[in-house]
């Protein structure tokens, strides 16, 4: 009986919960789902992580390659997000969807200056060399809020990156020194908090069902120094200044909690 109501009138079903200040999964409107972070999940990659926000699973792998240091504005970090058909019934194999491309582009601009160019330069006397990091983010289960999960997975994976020591012979051959490796020093830790607007309510960390019902969503990104990195809102219903301020406070708390988990172990 309850599930037929949910199927035929999903929005009304949802509102009966929200009117009492709670959501079907038991969370209040300001609670996020539990976060799990595992680093070094992929042994063949230089850095990797597996992040779970509730039932949204995101796997991230980083491969490092050596090349000539880039010209001025060219990035040393390239992020690619892929939504695999396994993650949701809405995704088909083939060309990356607009959503995946949008995520890739957003992550690239949010993470563009996490690592300085100098950090990735390889010291040697013969050739100018630099590391290039290729980050691949794969969504394995899509239960809403992909932006938060992907950004956390990128941070966790970057934290786990272990770059081997490189030396260059006089002839210009690149030799990998066994055993020795170095970790990366991240300058900035941007953490995203996504909110969805549903009728007159604003809910934190939407699930897939909530994303289907929402009238709009926005994301607030803070860094580790409590400074605002970004406010992203694409269309959707109007959010007043007061609501935005409240959500900024919530994001700040969220950021502190999530950062502790990312930088742990």
């Amino acid at each position, binding site marked *: 009986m309850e599930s037929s109501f949910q199927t035929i009138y999903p929005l009304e079903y949802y509102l009966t919960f929200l009117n009492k200040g709670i959501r079907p999964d038991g969370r209040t409107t300001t609670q996020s789902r539990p976060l799990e972070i595992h680093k070094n999940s992929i042994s063949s990659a230089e850095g990797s992580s597996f992040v779970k926000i509730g039932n949204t699973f995101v796997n991230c792998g980083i491969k490092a390659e050596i090349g000539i240091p880039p010209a001025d504005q060219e990035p040393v970090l390239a992020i690619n997000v892929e939504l695999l058909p396994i993650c949701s019934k809405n995704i088909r194999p083939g060309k990356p969807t607009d959503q995946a491309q949008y995520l890739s582009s957003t992550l690239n*601009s949010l993470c563009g*200056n996490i690592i300085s160019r100098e950090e990735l330069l390889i010291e040697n006397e013969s050739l100018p060399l630099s590391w290039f990091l290729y980050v691949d983010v794969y969504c394995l289960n899509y239960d809403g809020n992909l932006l938060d999960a992907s950004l956390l997975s990128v941070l966790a994976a970057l934290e786990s990156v272990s770059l081997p020591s490189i030396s260059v012979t006089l002839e210009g051959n690149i030799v990998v020194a066994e055993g020795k490796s170095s970790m990366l020093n991240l300058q900035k830790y941007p953490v995203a908090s996504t909110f969805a607007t549903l009728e007159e309510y604003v809910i934190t960390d939407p699930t897939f069902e909530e994303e289907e019902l929402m009238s709009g969503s926005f994301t607030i990104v803070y860094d580790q120094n409590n400074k605002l990195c970004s406010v992203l809102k694409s269309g*959707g219903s109007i959010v007043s200044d007061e609501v935005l301020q409240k959500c900024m406070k919530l994001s700040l708390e969220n950021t502190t909690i999530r950062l502790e988990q990312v930088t742990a172990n």
Partner: protein
Amino acid sequence: GNFKLKMELRSFNTRQSVLQRADGSCHLRQGNTEVLVGVYGPKQVPPRREKVGRADLQVEIKPSDEFPDLHWCKLQMEVEQCFQDFVLLLLHPGTQIKVVLQVVQDDGSLLSACVNATMLALIDAGIPMKNMVTSVTIAQNGDGELALDPNKQIEDASSAIFIFNVSKGEITSEKSAVQTSDINYSINEESYWKARSLSRSAAMKVYGIISLTTTSKCLYEGDGSAYE
């Protein structure tokens, strides 16, 4: 240096109904940023894009001199998501409203020019909408100074860019982003709120220009100073 002088919109130059084949069109110049938009619809929708009970709004962006890639796809999605809310899609179920955006020249504030031009083109095509939206871009440099409607040079020298799409004084979508050039820079909350309030007053000026263009349906040249 340049920032202190930059509290005005660049000169606007807008004209509707420039394309004969399109149902609606607009040619817009903000300073040297030039955009041409054609709106087609409501028209037949390709089967894979058909939406139940409402029209499909599709935005296609053609960059001036390159293949559309990730960055352009994002721009496209942002324009599309902005107008999803404003166009009354429920009035034309089973059809498509197609917006084709040709970027002729990008000299900064591109997303704002695209949104403003699309707005004018949709009006020209007679597509029913529930409200009007205008867009402004604000750049901030390392010292916290704000510049309104920046050109490419100012954008490249800035540390943060705010783009606000404003409808009747209410901000409906926004994008504030820290440029990737400066590694230690993040926005202070006060700067964000300052930019936000500046955007509302600037958007009212743009709104005035758009109103004038649509009511007179002729070439408008000026900087909106008559509408302060």
